[in-house]
Protein backbone atom coordinates (compact mmCIF):
# COMPACT_ATOMS: atom_id res chain seq x y z
CA UNK A 1 0.00 0.00 0.00
CA UNK A 2 2.67 2.41 1.06
CA UNK A 3 4.99 1.45 -1.78
CA UNK A 4 2.11 1.70 -4.18
CA UNK A 5 1.48 5.32 -3.17
CA UNK A 6 5.10 6.19 -3.53
CA UNK A 7 5.13 4.43 -6.85
CA UNK A 8 2.07 6.39 -7.92
CA UNK A 9 3.58 9.70 -6.88
CA UNK A 10 6.75 8.85 -8.71
CA UNK A 11 4.74 7.95 -11.78
CA UNK A 12 2.88 11.25 -11.66
CA UNK A 13 6.13 13.16 -11.29
CA UNK A 14 7.88 11.36 -14.13
CA UNK A 15 4.93 11.71 -16.47
CA UNK A 16 4.68 15.42 -15.72
CA UNK A 17 8.38 15.86 -16.29
CA UNK A 18 8.17 13.82 -19.49
CA UNK A 19 5.08 15.71 -20.62
CA UNK A 20 6.73 19.05 -19.92
CA UNK A 21 9.85 17.91 -21.70
CA UNK A 22 7.88 16.79 -24.72
CA UNK A 23 5.53 19.73 -24.86
CA UNK A 24 7.44 22.84 -23.88
CA UNK A 25 10.18 23.28 -26.45
CA UNK A 26 12.99 25.81 -26.29
CA UNK A 27 13.48 27.47 -29.65
CA UNK A 28 16.39 29.70 -30.52
CA UNK A 29 15.81 32.55 -32.93
CA UNK A 30 18.89 34.51 -33.94
CA UNK A 31 18.92 38.21 -34.70
CA UNK A 32 21.29 38.15 -37.62
CA UNK A 33 21.96 40.69 -40.39
CA UNK A 34 18.94 42.63 -39.14
CA UNK A 35 16.56 39.73 -39.60
CA UNK A 36 15.17 36.84 -37.57
CA UNK A 37 16.93 33.59 -38.37
CA UNK A 38 16.08 30.04 -37.32
CA UNK A 39 18.19 27.01 -38.26
CA UNK A 40 20.17 29.13 -40.69
CA UNK A 41 17.12 30.46 -42.49
CA UNK A 42 15.52 33.87 -42.43
CA UNK A 43 12.00 33.63 -41.06
CA UNK A 44 8.99 35.92 -40.97
CA UNK A 45 6.53 33.41 -39.57
CA UNK A 46 6.98 30.83 -36.86
CA UNK A 47 4.54 28.38 -35.30
CA UNK A 48 5.04 27.26 -31.71
CA UNK A 49 3.00 25.35 -29.15
CA UNK A 50 1.48 27.07 -26.11
CA UNK A 51 4.07 26.92 -23.35
CA UNK A 52 7.07 27.00 -25.69
CA UNK A 53 9.89 29.42 -25.08
CA UNK A 54 11.68 31.38 -27.77
CA UNK A 55 15.19 32.55 -26.97
CA UNK A 56 15.96 35.68 -28.97
CA UNK A 57 19.72 35.69 -29.40
CA UNK A 58 21.60 38.68 -30.81
CA UNK A 59 24.22 37.62 -33.34
CA UNK A 60 24.94 41.07 -34.83
CA UNK A 61 27.76 43.37 -33.72
CA UNK A 62 25.27 46.03 -32.58
CA UNK A 63 22.27 46.19 -30.25
CA UNK A 64 18.83 44.81 -31.01
CA UNK A 65 15.48 45.06 -29.29
CA UNK A 66 12.50 42.71 -29.28
CA UNK A 67 9.01 43.85 -28.43
CA UNK A 68 5.43 42.82 -28.89
CA UNK A 69 2.35 45.00 -28.47
CA UNK A 70 -0.40 42.56 -29.41
CA UNK A 71 -3.72 42.06 -27.59
CA UNK A 72 -2.47 38.61 -26.65
CA UNK A 73 0.97 39.45 -25.31
CA UNK A 74 2.92 42.56 -24.48
CA UNK A 75 6.59 42.59 -23.72
CA UNK A 76 9.65 44.73 -24.35
CA UNK A 77 13.04 43.07 -23.92
CA UNK A 78 14.96 46.36 -24.01
CA UNK A 79 18.16 46.40 -26.03
CA UNK A 80 21.04 43.95 -25.76
CA UNK A 81 24.34 43.24 -27.51
CA UNK A 82 25.88 40.41 -29.51
CA UNK A 83 25.96 37.09 -27.71
CA UNK A 84 23.16 37.88 -25.30
CA UNK A 85 19.89 36.04 -25.43
CA UNK A 86 16.50 36.71 -23.82
CA UNK A 87 13.70 34.17 -23.39
CA UNK A 88 9.98 34.73 -23.94
CA UNK A 89 7.42 32.09 -23.04
CA UNK A 90 4.34 32.03 -25.25
CA UNK A 91 1.38 30.75 -23.23
CA UNK A 92 -1.77 31.94 -24.95
CA UNK A 93 -2.87 30.53 -28.30
CA UNK A 94 -3.23 33.03 -31.12
CA UNK A 95 -1.06 35.14 -33.41
CA UNK A 96 1.35 37.79 -32.15
CA UNK A 97 3.66 40.19 -33.98
CA UNK A 98 7.23 40.42 -32.77
CA UNK A 99 9.43 43.28 -33.89
CA UNK A 100 12.72 45.07 -33.22
CA UNK A 101 11.98 48.69 -32.38
CA UNK A 102 15.45 49.79 -33.45
CA UNK A 103 15.26 48.06 -36.86
CA UNK A 104 11.54 47.74 -37.72
CA UNK A 105 12.42 45.68 -40.79
CA UNK A 106 12.99 42.87 -38.27
CA UNK A 107 9.46 41.62 -38.00
CA UNK A 108 8.01 38.20 -37.34
CA UNK A 109 4.59 36.66 -36.78
CA UNK A 110 4.44 33.98 -34.12
CA UNK A 111 1.47 31.64 -34.22
CA UNK A 112 0.89 29.99 -30.84
CA UNK A 113 -1.08 26.73 -31.10
Amino acid at each position, binding site marked *: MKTATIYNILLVITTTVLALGAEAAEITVLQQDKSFVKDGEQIEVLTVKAGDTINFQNDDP*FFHNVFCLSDLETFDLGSYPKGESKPVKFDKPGVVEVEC*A*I*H*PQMYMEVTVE
Partner: protein
Amino acid sequence: MIEKLEFRAAKTLAVASSLFLVALLSPSFVAAKDMGPTAEDVEKYRRPMEIPQPKNNRMTPERIELGKVLFFDPRLSGSNFISCATCHNPALGWSDGQPTAVGHGMEVLGRSTPTILNTAYQRFQFWDGRARTLEKQALGPIEAEGEMFQALDDLIDELKAIPGYEDMFEHAYPGEGVSKKTIAKAISSFERSVVATESPFDRWLKGVKGAMNDSAIRGFQVFKGKANCVACHDGFNFSDNGFHNIGLPDNKDQGRFSIKPIKVLKGAFKTPTLRDVALTAPYMHNGQFNTLMEVVEHYNRGGDKNMGNLDPNMKKLGLSKKEKKDLVEFLHALIGDPQEVTVPTLPVKK
Protein backbone atom coordinates in the same frame (compact mmCIF):
# COMPACT_ATOMS: atom_id res chain seq x y z
CA MET B 1 85.92 36.75 -42.19
CA ILE B 2 82.86 34.56 -41.98
CA GLU B 3 82.14 35.92 -38.58
CA LYS B 4 82.33 39.45 -39.93
CA LEU B 5 79.95 38.66 -42.75
CA GLU B 6 77.48 37.12 -40.40
CA PHE B 7 77.69 40.17 -38.21
CA ARG B 8 76.97 42.43 -41.16
CA ALA B 9 74.03 40.33 -42.26
CA ALA B 10 72.58 40.42 -38.79
CA LYS B 11 73.04 44.17 -38.66
CA THR B 12 71.26 44.71 -41.98
CA LEU B 13 68.46 42.47 -40.82
CA ALA B 14 68.12 44.45 -37.62
CA VAL B 15 68.01 47.76 -39.47
CA ALA B 16 65.55 46.41 -42.00
CA SER B 17 63.23 44.96 -39.40
CA SER B 18 63.28 48.10 -37.28
CA LEU B 19 62.42 50.13 -40.38
CA PHE B 20 59.57 47.74 -41.01
CA LEU B 21 58.39 48.16 -37.43
CA VAL B 22 58.44 51.95 -37.74
CA ALA B 23 56.45 51.68 -40.94
CA LEU B 24 53.93 49.38 -39.27
CA LEU B 25 53.47 51.65 -36.30
CA SER B 26 53.09 54.80 -38.34
CA PRO B 27 49.38 55.46 -38.85
CA SER B 28 49.83 56.42 -42.46
CA PHE B 29 51.23 53.03 -43.36
CA VAL B 30 47.93 51.57 -44.61
CA ALA B 31 46.92 54.65 -46.54
CA ALA B 32 50.32 55.22 -48.06
CA LYS B 33 50.03 51.77 -49.58
CA ASP B 34 46.39 52.37 -50.69
CA MET B 35 45.60 48.71 -50.48
CA GLY B 36 42.19 49.41 -51.97
CA PRO B 37 38.86 48.06 -50.78
CA THR B 38 38.41 44.55 -49.42
CA ALA B 39 36.01 42.13 -51.09
CA GLU B 40 33.70 42.68 -48.14
CA ASP B 41 33.75 46.46 -48.67
CA VAL B 42 32.78 46.04 -52.30
CA GLU B 43 29.96 43.67 -51.41
CA LYS B 44 28.64 45.93 -48.68
CA TYR B 45 28.94 49.41 -50.14
CA ARG B 46 28.51 49.00 -53.89
CA ARG B 47 25.60 51.03 -55.18
CA PRO B 48 22.70 48.92 -56.47
CA MET B 49 21.91 49.08 -60.19
CA GLU B 50 18.17 49.11 -59.64
CA ILE B 51 15.77 51.51 -57.97
CA PRO B 52 13.09 49.73 -55.94
CA GLN B 53 9.60 50.67 -57.09
CA PRO B 54 6.12 49.46 -56.16
CA LYS B 55 4.23 47.18 -58.57
CA ASN B 56 1.34 49.61 -58.89
CA ASN B 57 3.56 52.59 -59.67
CA ARG B 58 6.39 51.63 -62.02
CA MET B 59 8.60 54.52 -63.05
CA THR B 60 8.04 55.79 -66.58
CA PRO B 61 9.49 58.94 -68.16
CA GLU B 62 5.97 60.47 -68.25
CA ARG B 63 5.40 59.81 -64.56
CA ILE B 64 8.80 61.15 -63.55
CA GLU B 65 8.29 64.29 -65.63
CA LEU B 66 4.81 64.94 -64.23
CA GLY B 67 6.10 64.38 -60.71
CA LYS B 68 8.93 66.80 -61.31
CA VAL B 69 6.57 69.51 -62.56
CA LEU B 70 4.39 69.04 -59.48
CA PHE B 71 7.47 69.06 -57.23
CA PHE B 72 8.52 72.45 -58.58
CA ASP B 73 5.05 73.98 -58.77
CA PRO B 74 4.30 76.51 -55.99
CA ARG B 75 0.62 76.38 -56.95
CA LEU B 76 0.55 73.18 -54.89
CA SER B 77 0.57 75.42 -51.80
CA GLY B 78 -2.22 77.49 -50.31
CA SER B 79 -0.16 80.63 -50.78
CA ASN B 80 0.90 79.62 -54.33
CA PHE B 81 4.33 80.59 -53.05
CA ILE B 82 5.88 77.40 -51.70
CA SER B 83 6.72 74.31 -53.70
CA CYS B 84 8.28 71.08 -52.49
CA ALA B 85 11.50 72.40 -54.02
CA THR B 86 11.37 75.51 -51.82
CA CYS B 87 12.46 73.31 -48.94
CA HIS B 88 13.90 70.38 -50.91
CA ASN B 89 16.06 72.59 -53.12
CA PRO B 90 18.33 70.75 -55.58
CA ALA B 91 20.86 73.59 -55.35
CA LEU B 92 21.22 72.82 -51.63
CA GLY B 93 21.48 69.03 -51.81
CA TRP B 94 17.66 68.75 -51.96
CA SER B 95 17.42 70.47 -48.58
CA ASP B 96 17.18 74.12 -47.52
CA GLY B 97 20.28 75.11 -45.60
CA GLN B 98 18.16 76.03 -42.57
CA PRO B 99 18.53 74.55 -39.08
CA THR B 100 14.82 73.69 -39.18
CA ALA B 101 12.37 74.18 -42.03
CA VAL B 102 10.54 77.43 -42.73
CA GLY B 103 7.00 76.89 -43.99
CA HIS B 104 3.67 78.59 -44.65
CA GLY B 105 3.67 82.21 -43.42
CA MET B 106 7.41 81.94 -42.70
CA GLU B 107 6.66 79.75 -39.71
CA VAL B 108 9.78 78.06 -38.35
CA LEU B 109 9.05 74.35 -37.95
CA GLY B 110 10.34 71.93 -35.35
CA ARG B 111 12.46 69.69 -37.56
CA SER B 112 15.03 70.13 -40.28
CA THR B 113 14.37 69.35 -43.92
CA PRO B 114 15.94 66.03 -44.92
CA THR B 115 17.26 65.47 -48.42
CA ILE B 116 15.07 63.50 -50.83
CA LEU B 117 18.18 61.88 -52.30
CA ASN B 118 17.95 58.07 -52.17
CA THR B 119 14.59 58.14 -50.41
CA ALA B 120 13.69 55.37 -52.87
CA TYR B 121 15.88 53.06 -50.80
CA GLN B 122 14.44 54.06 -47.44
CA ARG B 123 12.07 51.74 -45.67
CA PHE B 124 10.56 54.63 -43.74
CA GLN B 125 10.02 58.30 -44.50
CA PHE B 126 10.31 61.24 -42.06
CA TRP B 127 12.66 61.57 -39.13
CA ASP B 128 10.31 59.44 -37.05
CA GLY B 129 9.49 57.01 -39.87
CA ARG B 130 5.76 57.71 -39.66
CA ALA B 131 5.21 57.11 -43.40
CA ARG B 132 6.21 53.76 -44.84
CA THR B 133 6.22 54.75 -48.50
CA LEU B 134 6.83 57.83 -50.60
CA GLU B 135 3.25 57.56 -51.87
CA LYS B 136 2.00 57.80 -48.27
CA GLN B 137 4.36 60.68 -47.58
CA ALA B 138 3.70 62.88 -50.60
CA LEU B 139 0.34 64.43 -49.72
CA GLY B 140 1.25 65.20 -46.12
CA PRO B 141 3.27 68.38 -46.73
CA ILE B 142 0.69 69.78 -49.17
CA GLU B 143 -2.03 69.68 -46.53
CA ALA B 144 0.11 70.41 -43.46
CA GLU B 145 -0.74 73.77 -41.97
CA GLY B 146 2.90 74.51 -41.25
CA GLU B 147 4.19 73.50 -44.67
CA MET B 148 2.09 74.20 -47.79
CA PHE B 149 -1.40 74.54 -46.26
CA GLN B 150 -3.39 73.60 -49.34
CA ALA B 151 -6.69 71.68 -49.23
CA LEU B 152 -6.32 68.72 -51.58
CA ASP B 153 -9.83 68.88 -53.08
CA ASP B 154 -9.27 72.49 -54.07
CA LEU B 155 -5.89 71.59 -55.49
CA ILE B 156 -7.40 68.93 -57.71
CA ASP B 157 -9.86 71.50 -59.10
CA GLU B 158 -7.03 73.98 -59.66
CA LEU B 159 -4.93 71.42 -61.54
CA LYS B 160 -7.87 70.26 -63.64
CA ALA B 161 -8.34 73.84 -64.81
CA ILE B 162 -4.86 73.79 -66.34
CA PRO B 163 -5.01 71.95 -69.70
CA GLY B 164 -1.32 71.11 -69.71
CA TYR B 165 -1.75 69.20 -66.47
CA GLU B 166 -4.79 67.27 -67.72
CA ASP B 167 -2.65 66.05 -70.64
CA MET B 168 0.32 65.14 -68.51
CA PHE B 169 -1.81 63.15 -66.07
CA GLU B 170 -3.49 61.37 -68.98
CA HIS B 171 -0.12 60.40 -70.44
CA ALA B 172 1.34 59.33 -67.12
CA TYR B 173 -1.70 57.54 -65.71
CA PRO B 174 -4.10 56.85 -68.60
CA GLY B 175 -7.72 56.87 -67.52
CA GLU B 176 -6.93 57.56 -63.87
CA GLY B 177 -7.49 61.32 -63.98
CA VAL B 178 -6.19 64.03 -61.66
CA SER B 179 -6.64 62.67 -58.16
CA LYS B 180 -4.96 62.50 -54.78
CA LYS B 181 -3.68 59.09 -55.79
CA THR B 182 -2.15 60.13 -59.09
CA ILE B 183 -0.63 63.26 -57.56
CA ALA B 184 1.03 61.16 -54.86
CA LYS B 185 2.17 58.51 -57.34
CA ALA B 186 3.67 61.00 -59.78
CA ILE B 187 5.57 62.90 -57.09
CA SER B 188 6.89 59.61 -55.70
CA SER B 189 8.07 58.51 -59.15
CA PHE B 190 10.04 61.70 -59.48
CA GLU B 191 11.54 61.35 -56.01
CA ARG B 192 12.63 57.78 -56.75
CA SER B 193 14.55 59.11 -59.74
CA VAL B 194 16.65 61.30 -57.45
CA VAL B 195 19.43 58.89 -56.56
CA ALA B 196 23.03 59.47 -55.55
CA THR B 197 25.53 59.79 -58.35
CA GLU B 198 28.99 58.23 -58.38
CA SER B 199 31.28 59.62 -55.69
CA PRO B 200 35.04 59.37 -55.19
CA PHE B 201 34.30 56.61 -52.68
CA ASP B 202 32.40 54.61 -55.32
CA ARG B 203 35.29 54.97 -57.76
CA TRP B 204 37.71 53.85 -55.06
CA LEU B 205 35.47 50.80 -54.47
CA LYS B 206 35.79 50.02 -58.18
CA GLY B 207 39.54 50.01 -57.74
CA VAL B 208 40.34 53.34 -59.38
CA LYS B 209 43.72 54.37 -57.93
CA GLY B 210 43.77 57.83 -56.41
CA ALA B 211 39.99 58.16 -56.52
CA MET B 212 39.95 58.94 -52.79
CA ASN B 213 42.81 60.75 -51.13
CA ASP B 214 44.83 59.09 -48.36
CA SER B 215 43.10 61.03 -45.63
CA ALA B 216 39.65 59.89 -46.84
CA ILE B 217 40.88 56.28 -47.08
CA ARG B 218 42.10 56.47 -43.49
CA GLY B 219 38.77 58.09 -42.59
CA PHE B 220 36.91 55.11 -44.03
CA GLN B 221 38.95 52.78 -41.82
CA VAL B 222 38.09 54.92 -38.78
CA PHE B 223 34.43 54.97 -39.87
CA LYS B 224 34.35 51.15 -39.95
CA GLY B 225 36.73 50.56 -37.08
CA LYS B 226 37.54 52.75 -34.11
CA ALA B 227 34.54 55.08 -34.49
CA ASN B 228 32.12 52.25 -35.36
CA CYS B 229 29.84 54.55 -37.33
CA VAL B 230 28.79 51.44 -39.24
CA ALA B 231 26.83 50.21 -36.23
CA CYS B 232 24.16 52.50 -37.66
CA HIS B 233 25.35 54.05 -40.95
CA ASP B 234 25.74 50.76 -42.75
CA GLY B 235 25.50 49.63 -46.37
CA PHE B 236 25.68 51.59 -49.64
CA ASN B 237 23.15 54.15 -48.41
CA PHE B 238 24.95 54.47 -45.06
CA SER B 239 21.75 53.82 -43.13
CA ASP B 240 20.43 50.84 -41.21
CA ASN B 241 16.87 52.11 -41.71
CA GLY B 242 16.82 52.10 -37.93
CA PHE B 243 15.99 54.52 -35.12
CA HIS B 244 18.46 55.65 -32.49
CA ASN B 245 18.81 58.20 -29.74
CA ILE B 246 22.28 59.61 -30.34
CA GLY B 247 22.25 61.94 -27.35
CA LEU B 248 21.30 65.30 -28.77
CA PRO B 249 20.24 67.71 -26.03
CA ASP B 250 16.62 67.25 -25.03
CA ASN B 251 14.51 69.43 -27.25
CA LYS B 252 11.23 67.83 -26.15
CA ASP B 253 10.93 66.01 -29.46
CA GLN B 254 10.48 62.35 -28.59
CA GLY B 255 10.90 61.26 -32.20
CA ARG B 256 9.96 57.68 -32.98
CA PHE B 257 8.58 57.18 -29.44
CA SER B 258 5.45 59.16 -30.35
CA ILE B 259 4.82 56.65 -33.15
CA LYS B 260 5.80 53.52 -31.20
CA PRO B 261 5.86 53.87 -27.42
CA ILE B 262 8.75 51.49 -26.79
CA LYS B 263 11.34 52.67 -24.28
CA VAL B 264 14.38 52.38 -26.58
CA LEU B 265 12.68 54.79 -28.97
CA LYS B 266 12.57 57.80 -26.63
CA GLY B 267 14.31 60.57 -28.50
CA ALA B 268 15.21 58.16 -31.32
CA PHE B 269 15.29 59.34 -34.91
CA LYS B 270 15.88 57.64 -38.23
CA THR B 271 19.48 57.08 -39.29
CA PRO B 272 19.85 59.37 -42.32
CA THR B 273 21.88 58.59 -45.42
CA LEU B 274 25.38 60.07 -45.50
CA ARG B 275 25.58 60.34 -49.27
CA ASP B 276 25.99 64.00 -50.25
CA VAL B 277 25.78 64.83 -46.56
CA ALA B 278 28.52 67.45 -46.89
CA LEU B 279 26.06 69.45 -49.03
CA THR B 280 23.25 69.62 -46.47
CA ALA B 281 24.45 71.47 -43.37
CA PRO B 282 23.16 72.18 -40.75
CA TYR B 283 22.84 68.67 -39.35
CA MET B 284 20.47 66.47 -37.30
CA HIS B 285 16.69 66.56 -36.99
CA ASN B 286 16.98 69.76 -34.98
CA GLY B 287 19.70 71.33 -37.11
CA GLN B 288 21.97 71.87 -34.15
CA PHE B 289 25.36 71.29 -35.78
CA ASN B 290 26.73 73.61 -38.44
CA THR B 291 29.66 71.53 -39.65
CA LEU B 292 30.63 67.91 -40.06
CA MET B 293 33.49 68.49 -37.62
CA GLU B 294 30.92 69.50 -34.97
CA VAL B 295 29.08 66.25 -35.72
CA VAL B 296 32.27 64.21 -35.37
CA GLU B 297 33.11 65.99 -32.09
CA HIS B 298 29.63 65.06 -30.84
CA TYR B 299 30.23 61.38 -31.58
CA ASN B 300 33.72 61.59 -30.12
CA ARG B 301 32.21 62.76 -26.81
CA GLY B 302 29.87 59.76 -26.94
CA GLY B 303 26.91 62.10 -27.35
CA ASP B 304 25.35 64.36 -24.78
CA LYS B 305 23.02 63.33 -21.95
CA ASN B 306 19.49 62.94 -23.14
CA MET B 307 16.37 61.51 -21.57
CA GLY B 308 18.48 58.71 -20.08
CA ASN B 309 18.04 56.73 -23.24
CA LEU B 310 21.29 57.01 -25.14
CA ASP B 311 21.76 54.27 -27.75
CA PRO B 312 24.27 51.79 -26.26
CA ASN B 313 26.30 51.88 -29.48
CA MET B 314 27.23 55.45 -28.56
CA LYS B 315 30.53 55.53 -26.66
CA LYS B 316 33.41 57.92 -26.07
CA LEU B 317 35.66 57.31 -29.04
CA GLY B 318 38.99 58.87 -28.10
CA LEU B 319 39.75 59.92 -31.68
CA SER B 320 42.90 61.89 -32.37
CA LYS B 321 42.79 65.22 -34.15
CA LYS B 322 44.02 63.50 -37.29
CA GLU B 323 41.42 60.74 -37.11
CA LYS B 324 38.67 63.33 -36.78
CA LYS B 325 39.94 65.21 -39.82
CA ASP B 326 40.17 61.94 -41.75
CA LEU B 327 36.56 61.10 -40.90
CA VAL B 328 35.36 64.46 -42.19
CA GLU B 329 37.46 63.97 -45.32
CA PHE B 330 35.80 60.60 -45.85
CA LEU B 331 32.32 62.12 -45.52
CA HIS B 332 33.33 64.61 -48.21
CA ALA B 333 34.35 61.71 -50.45
CA LEU B 334 30.69 60.64 -50.39
CA ILE B 335 29.65 63.68 -52.46
CA GLY B 336 28.39 62.38 -55.79
CA ASP B 337 29.35 63.91 -59.12
CA PRO B 338 27.38 67.11 -59.77
CA GLN B 339 24.01 66.33 -61.25
CA GLU B 340 22.44 68.82 -63.57
CA VAL B 341 18.86 69.42 -62.58
CA THR B 342 16.74 71.31 -65.08
CA VAL B 343 13.87 73.37 -63.72
CA PRO B 344 10.67 72.49 -65.58
CA THR B 345 8.46 75.05 -67.29
CA LEU B 346 5.11 74.85 -65.57
CA PRO B 347 1.91 74.44 -67.56
CA VAL B 348 -0.35 77.53 -67.54
CA LYS B 349 -4.04 78.30 -67.91
CA LYS B 350 -5.35 79.15 -71.36
